[in-house]
């Protein structure tokens, strides 16, 4: 029993700036010693690295209550009253009642006494994983975060607070106006936003759409955090339901590689947001008449025949005849 206690204090190592967990929550800890042998090895490696200096006073801080915070941080306290997180002040479920500030910043009794920034947990200055854990202690077990840990944002250390302003208004915490959402995303994804200045694009700058109509910034089962629709279809079909199918005669790339095989969804100088300047080049890149068999190249759609005279204007736009290019219910050649 004593040995267990000893281990529980020294293993796993806690973040020096992290406070004891509030009642009802679980601390962000590294692995249990029984977990993996590799964990022990990594522990030896990492404990050899310089760690943050623990506070001189080892006596743990206690909760001081939000009113104690208000004394010095009046402006933040007032702004917080308009923030949806204000409900945390009444949250008995997680044990944060009257402790909304400390639900994120940890027990603040030492900070109240010393007024030193070193005595309070500041998520903005913590490593991203630690800062996010503060948010996830409440928000992890929610559907929003089903794909979070495999999302590009999580991998690239984009913290929750990068997009969500904790102390400010409802709109700044979770932007809901399309222009605000787009501005938030464009702050980092500048090249993508620049694509929306092209002539043929989805109508984001006009305010008809926002980035989160197509992407789930918290992660998704699909690459590029593309949202799902109707369980497991890409979000494109939310607005383009007529392209969803199933068709009696499907066009394989629509299902196998998605709309971006032929379209630039953010914007293009080519009509219909095509990836190439003219339709025939979009088609010919796969339907190239290459004289190898499909089995040899192990690719779809490249085999002969095509007998069209590409010098004739009639055959320079494939969709003039192959009108049902996304899939046809009548014609295997997608003619009607």
């Amino acid at each position, binding site marked *: 029993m004593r040995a267990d206690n000893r281990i529980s204090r020294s293993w796993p190592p806690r973040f020096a700036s992290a406070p004891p967990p509030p009642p009802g929550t679980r601390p962000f800890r590294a692995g249990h010693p029984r977990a993996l042998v590799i964990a022990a090895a990594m522990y030896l490696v990492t404990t050899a690295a310089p760690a943050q200096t623990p506070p001189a006073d080892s006596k743990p801080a206690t909760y001081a209550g939000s009113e104690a915070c208000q004394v010095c941080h009046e402006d933040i306290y007032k702004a917080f009253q308009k923030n949806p997180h204000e409900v945390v002040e009444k949250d008995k479920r997680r044990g944060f009642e009257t402790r909304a500030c400390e639900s994120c910043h940890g027990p603040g009794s030492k900070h109240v006494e010393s007024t030193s920034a070193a005595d309070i947990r500041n998520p903005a200055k913590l490593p991203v994983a630690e800062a996010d854990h503060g948010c996830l202690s409440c928000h992890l077990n929610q559907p929003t975060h*089903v794909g979070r840990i495999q999302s590009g944002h999580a991998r690239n250390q984009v913290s929750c607070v990068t997009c969500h302003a904790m102390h400010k208004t409802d709109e700044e915490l979770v932007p809901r106006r399309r222009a605000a959402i787009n501005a938030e995303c464009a702050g980092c994804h500048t090249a993508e936003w620049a694509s929306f200045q092209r002539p043929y694009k989805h109508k984001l700058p006009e*305010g008809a759409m926002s980035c989160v109509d197509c992407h789930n910034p918290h992660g998704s089962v699909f690459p590029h955090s593309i949202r799902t629709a109707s369980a497991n279809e890409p979000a494109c079909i939310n607005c383009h339901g007529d392209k969803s199918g199933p068709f*009696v005669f499907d066009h394989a790339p629509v299902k196998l590689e998605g709309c971006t095989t032929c379209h630039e969804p953010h914007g293009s100088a080519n009509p219909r947001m095509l990836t190439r300047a003219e339709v025939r080049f979009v088609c010919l890149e796969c339907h190239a008449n290459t004289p190898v068999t499909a089995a040899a*190249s192990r690719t779809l759609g490249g085999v002969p025949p095509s007998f069209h005279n590409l010098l004739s204007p009639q055959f320079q736009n494939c969709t003039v005849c192959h009108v049902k290019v996304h899939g046809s219910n009548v014609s295997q050649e997608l003619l009607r």
Partner: protein
Amino acid sequence: MKIWLLALAALPLAAQQTTPAAQETPAAPVASTPETTITGSVDLGYRFNSVGGSLDAFRSVVDTGSGVRLLGLDLTIESATRKWFDRIDVRGSGWGGDPYTTAHVDAARHDWYHFNFDYRDVAYFNFLPSFADPTIGNGVFLDQQSFDSHRRMMDFDLELLPGHWIVPYLAYSRDSGWGRGVTDFVNGINSYPVEDRPRDSTNNYRGGVRLEMKKFHVTLEQGGTTFKDDQQVFTSNQNFGNNTAPLLGEQLDVTNLAQAYGVRGNSIYSKALLTANPTPWLDLFGEFLYSRPDTNVNYSQYNVGQFVDLTALLFYTSELDLLSGVAKEPHTTANLGFEMRPVRRLRVIESWMTDRLHTASSAALTQQILTPAMTTLLNSFTSLLVMNYNREQVDVLFDLTSRITLRGGYRYEWGNGLTDGALLSGSPTETGRLKRQVGLGGVSYRALQKLSFSVDFEGSGGDRGYFRTSLQDYQKARIQARYQLRQSLVFSAAFSVLSNQNTNPAVNYSFLSRDNSATVTWTPNNSKRVTLTGEYTRATLRSDLDYIVPQDFTTGKSFYRDNVHEASTLVNLLIPGFGANGPKLSVGGSLLRSSGSRPTDFYQPTARFSAPPYKHMTWYGEWRYYGFAEPFYLYEGFRAQLATIGVRFTR
């Protein structure tokens, strides 16, 4: 209740006021009744439109018209009693004829419900002869794949008991499209541009429950969709089509056509989501998604004119086709993963995903040549499309210091696709295989909030892809950096590159794209007087791919080049001498210049002046210019000036 009690308590005080003595005493405090507050703004305006050049191209790109508009509505209603709601947000834009009409309502009562409604009506016009006009050489400017249509989307979401352990929810959404356009009727060796009336709609109903417990969460959802497509294609005018050359002395034409698509579809789908943190060092997640859409088709076609059946070398003048078909597509997707933190600085993220669909369809087509009377032909078809995709990925993140995180990983993707063989390929099916092993790496550096950058890389030796242009032997990298020089001055930059090669001698595919962008934001004095944002992006794309020219079987090269310069800026200036709420001037816009396969110039300068004559009212005027030019397609250039005057009421 408290209000009534306060009012009752104040009654004796009010009674005392009738006595002369009471007149000398200070007035008793009167309980104020809390009131529901409405805040927000309403923008009303009139837009003047002047377009030179191609009106069709203008409508295809911009499409805003003249007239009175409700340009913006943004209201927040906060209830004092909080009996039925705490707050309702109402937003809208573009009402009165703009091509993008939106409305949104968000209502909530804490712990009781959260409801939102979203509405969008997007006018979708496209008429660009450069896109699909085989007759343009004859002076006919007709995009044979054009449309003037609308898409309308509506979403209703109701969530009950938000914040509780058990949260039921219901949702309904509808997507519909209608309009008119031009499409082609294809018959034999000719195609005829004819009138098109697309009309489709999809209804999506879903409901579920979320269980949000301390250590885990489960969402169970059941939904269904219904779909219908009633497109009609018709003409009653003589039409010689795109191939006007007589065939064996016969001039082909269509004089009467009625094509009717009666497509009905439905789908049942299920969704199960899970997150859990059984121990403090382990987070789990998983999802299971299943859908089974079905489509039933009834198609009819009646055409009159002069047609040819080349296989029988038979000329005929009228035909009736009837088709009945069905397609089913069971589709299963599953995803499992975990994040493990064996030690403080180390995180291991593992995820696995599979996506499998199997489309099987069949159809029976009855073809009857009516004149001359021929035997009815009955053809039956079957078709299939199979996809089995799998992905396994492991990432290791190591916090080298509290500021630097290193990432490394490995992704393996594999699968196969099976589809019908090309008609004359001699094989009933084609198989494509996917096998891709990808190495992942990266580093993030975050020096407080002043400086941060991240580098991402992934590369694959590539083996097999579904298509010739799929990612095979590729490298992808991205660098992002942000530097806050001063509190009011922020620079950021991003660079990304993708290089993809398919060295199969029959393909010879080489693809390279680069995006470089830089942004500066200057907001001195907390944006009180001046703000400036500027952005520049340079994007290049090069794609080379072999193909066989069908008429002489020589090898051709498909080149695509795109070399784009994009810049945008916006300067907001508070006119000095009028205080913080004085007149404001905004000047900016964007420009795009691209060269390459489809050189394009697109300029969108804009200026806006606003002045508040009263506290809750602001007059404004806005000017916007659109200049669009394509050297290869000069007939699609346009210049448009849009001037808007309006008034904004705020409260």
